[in-house]
């Protein structure tokens, strides 16, 4: 995406690279010196070497201004976070100082309701936290609250998505191991993404979520804030004249990507369905060989052997399908939700720009009429727009990088699962062949001795 200044109304001075503005005004990110630290050892798995290559050759950073070093740093942090052990302090860059984990699901049964809680563990050196370590239990509701608070308090930032809130009772078992496991992994991802965000991780609500025994959620107030927000938006009612091309491009990309994700989801589900039906026939196939073996003499052992191999292949196929449905589908759905979030942020940005332009126009007209100077509010609006743009671009880059990381990992893992499936089958058939050939040699020897 090229850095473009907003078209149309232009009395704004040409913006420098948005990240430099962002760093100064908004995020208390630790001071980034010009030297860009790239870790020597790649701590992450198979993609490690590639990551270094990505960062040093022709990374698609639009300009080479000093601020881009910080975006490099962001990328480093994100590249590391998803594969490195978050508790391994030596594995990451120097600036990593907040590590969170979600695990250990437990079921709680009370008279009113039954629900699951998860253990949320925190390790940090930040001064904003009173203690270096925390461990408490949270339920989905609490995560939902956190996300809502983040959205309200950081409207210019992209908040990572949560796994879906509602599941149809009767269709999905909310307490099945599989469901809980999948949900927990998604919650862990959510929290890690927030904790790694240079702005969001310093949000006081996150702090409360990680440290307070009682969240004191004050649902009422939350409702008010939501109302306030929509009031703000309604009161704005400004129409955007011309959206800069780069944001339009983002919107288009998101729409197309959304479509592709939908298709991928359908394909994956279709494959799972075909695999399940294949499995049904394969099971019967194996049992026919077993049945046949019963009426045979010399052929009994080879036929039983084939039945055994087929049965091994069935088990391997089951594992493959399970892996696919537990890993692939949730990530596809997560990104669909991410896209929704991102589109909302884009909309808000548009509104912020529209408001500024509207006010500016009004102010200019008044100035022409009666020489009233442009009010300070208008300048503040401009600042807001610039900040928004900066935050959004930074988050966009981060999101793109995350996305690339996630999908690379996901597809590689899918390939691994398939390879594993074929390897298991191959080894079963190979041991059958060698067993049958050995038997054959034995029989030959026997007849030789006759």
């Amino acid at each position, binding site marked *: 995406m090229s850095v473009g200044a907003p078209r149309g109304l232009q009395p704004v001075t040409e913006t420098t690279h948005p990240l430099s503005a962002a760093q100064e005004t908004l995020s208390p990110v630790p001071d980034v010196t010009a030297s860009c630290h790239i870790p020597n050892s790649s701590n992450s798995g*198979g*993609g490690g070497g*590639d990551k270094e290559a990505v960062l040093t050759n022709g990374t*698609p950073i639009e300009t080479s201004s000093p601020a881009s070093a910080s975006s490099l740093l962001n990328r480093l942090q994100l590249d590391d976070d998803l594969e490195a052990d978050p508790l391994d302090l030596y594995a990451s860059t120097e600036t990593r100082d907040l590590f969170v984990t979600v695990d250990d699901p437990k079921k709680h049964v009370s008279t009113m309701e039954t629900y699951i809680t998860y253990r949320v563990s925190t390790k940090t050196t930040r001064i904003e936290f009173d203690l270096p370590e925390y461990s408490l239990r949270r339920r989905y509701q609490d995560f939902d609250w956190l996300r809502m608070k983040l959205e309200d308090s950081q409207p210019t930032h992209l908040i990572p998505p949560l796994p879906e809130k509602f599941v149809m009772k009767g269709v999905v078992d909310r307490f099945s191991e599989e469901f809980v496991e999948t949900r927990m992994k998604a919650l862990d991802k959510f929290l890690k993404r927030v904790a790694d965000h240079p702005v969001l991780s310093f949000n006081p609500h996150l702090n409360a979520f990680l440290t307070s025994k009682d969240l004191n959620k004050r649902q009422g107030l939350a409702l008010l804030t939501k109302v306030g927000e929509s009031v703000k938006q309604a009161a704005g009612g400004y129409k955007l004249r011309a959206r800069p091309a780069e944001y339009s491009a983002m919107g288009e*990309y998101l729409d*197309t*990507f959304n479509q*592709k994700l939908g*298709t*991928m989801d359908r*394909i994956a589900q*279709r*494959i799972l369905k*075909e*695999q399940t*039906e*294949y499995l*049904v*026939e*394969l099971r*019967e*196939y194996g049992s*026919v*060989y077993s*049945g*046949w073996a019963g*009426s045979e*003499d*010399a*052929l009994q052992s*080879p*036929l039983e*052997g*084939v039945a055994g*191999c087929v049965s091994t292949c069935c088990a391997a196929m089951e594992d493959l399908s399970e892996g696919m449905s537990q890993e692939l589908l949730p990530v596809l759905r997560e990104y669909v939700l991410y896209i929704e979030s991102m589109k909302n942020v884009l909309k808000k940005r548009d509104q912020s720009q529209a408001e500024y332009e509207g006010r500016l126009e009004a102010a200019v007209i008044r100035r022409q009429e009666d020489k009233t100077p442009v009010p300070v509010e208008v300048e503040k609006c401009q600042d807001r727009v610039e900040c928004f743009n900066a935050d959004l671009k930074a988050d966009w880059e981060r999101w793109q990088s995350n996305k*690339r990381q996630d*999908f*690379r990992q996901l*597809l*590689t893992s899918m*390939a*691994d699962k*398939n*390879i594993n*499936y*074929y*390897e298991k*089958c*191959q080894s079963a*058939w190979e041991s*059958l*062949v060698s067993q*049958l*050939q050995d038997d*054959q*040699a034995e*029989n*030959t020897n026997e*007849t*030789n001795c006759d």
Partner: protein
Amino acid sequence: MMADSGSEEAAFLDNTDLTSTESENNIINTMVERETALLRKIDINVAESDKRTGKNTVNMPETYTVYLIEIRPAGAEGGVPVGGSPWRRYSEFELLRTYLLVTYPFVVIPPLPEKRAEFVWHKLSADNLDPDFVERRRMALENFLMRVASHSVLSKDNVFYQFLTEEKGWRESVLETGFQDKADSRLKSLSAMFRVKNPDKSFTDLKQYSDELNSAISHLLRVRAKVADRMYGVYKVHGNYGRIFSEWSAIEKEMGDGLQSAGHHMDTHSASVDDILEEEEHYADQLKEYLFYTDAVRSVCRKHELIQYELEMAVLDLANKKQQREELATGAVRVFSLKGMSSKLFGQESPEQRESRLAALQQSIQAAEEAVLDKNAECREFMRMSWEEVKLFQEQKDRELREALISYAIMQISMCKKGIQVWSNAKECFNKM
């Protein structure tokens, strides 16, 4: 002799990349190793197929396939064929086989390939004129001729030899042998099946086994076709990944190349199923041959039943006649006879009449005794020869089906290797994303 063929087999099978054609050749080679008259001298080849048009029995135009039969002296591969190199159609093969069935009822006659495609999974054509079907049939017909030619008894048959060498007039000369008169009527066989009093246990067991084998293989072939269908579906849907990766890569920058090339691998993967399933058809054909073999075994059992039944009838007939003689001699009427009845109705007969009747009966008894002896000998001989045949068949079946299972396993291994290759390639592309 067994040892020779065995070690040959072991030598071949160490090579796990054996194709099904090669393993077929192994079977043929081991057949050749046996004491086979004709096959030592000649190589039989069903070289080609062709389409002809003509008129059928009700004078309607029809299209049919013919197959070229070529004989060469053993070992003279690529040389000029000897004999008339006749073109034969499927119905002539059927005629040959029927002739062999009637003429050598104690032999387990090798079966022909199916008349119409059965146990078909959806993509495979069930059309008799489809080139793949014709090709597989050509190979199966060659296999049939080889089996007949390597049989110690069948290979010496002149009609068979003429089938291989003379195109014109073969049909007429077969019919001239009058073999159809020797054929046992269906009705006779059926009644024999139900009325044998002392069936031989080993033949009863054999019939039961052949029924079980028939049922097991049919079941297997049916389920295999369904499995093939489903597997086809799984592979083909992966082709959609190819398309979506390609579309998706168009909107990506860094990820684009990796996605695009991975998509190509998905296409390759999806396309590979066609070859895999084509190869598996060979395995299905091997199973089918043994499915049809069970019919041949049942024929032998039925023939035994019939002979046994005829023997029992002959014994009964003799007993009846002896009973009659006794009654005639003593005057006591215990057995119904027309003469006896009429004498009751119309009065006693004269001593001369009785004398002549006794003499006729005595002759009849002698004939019946000879008949029993003959039938007994026939029965014993049939049992001896057919049991030898059955034993040979069992050994052949055990050996060949075992090899078929091994080559099936090798096919699966090859399929797994392909899968690993393609996903490893895709993984490399993903890593570059």
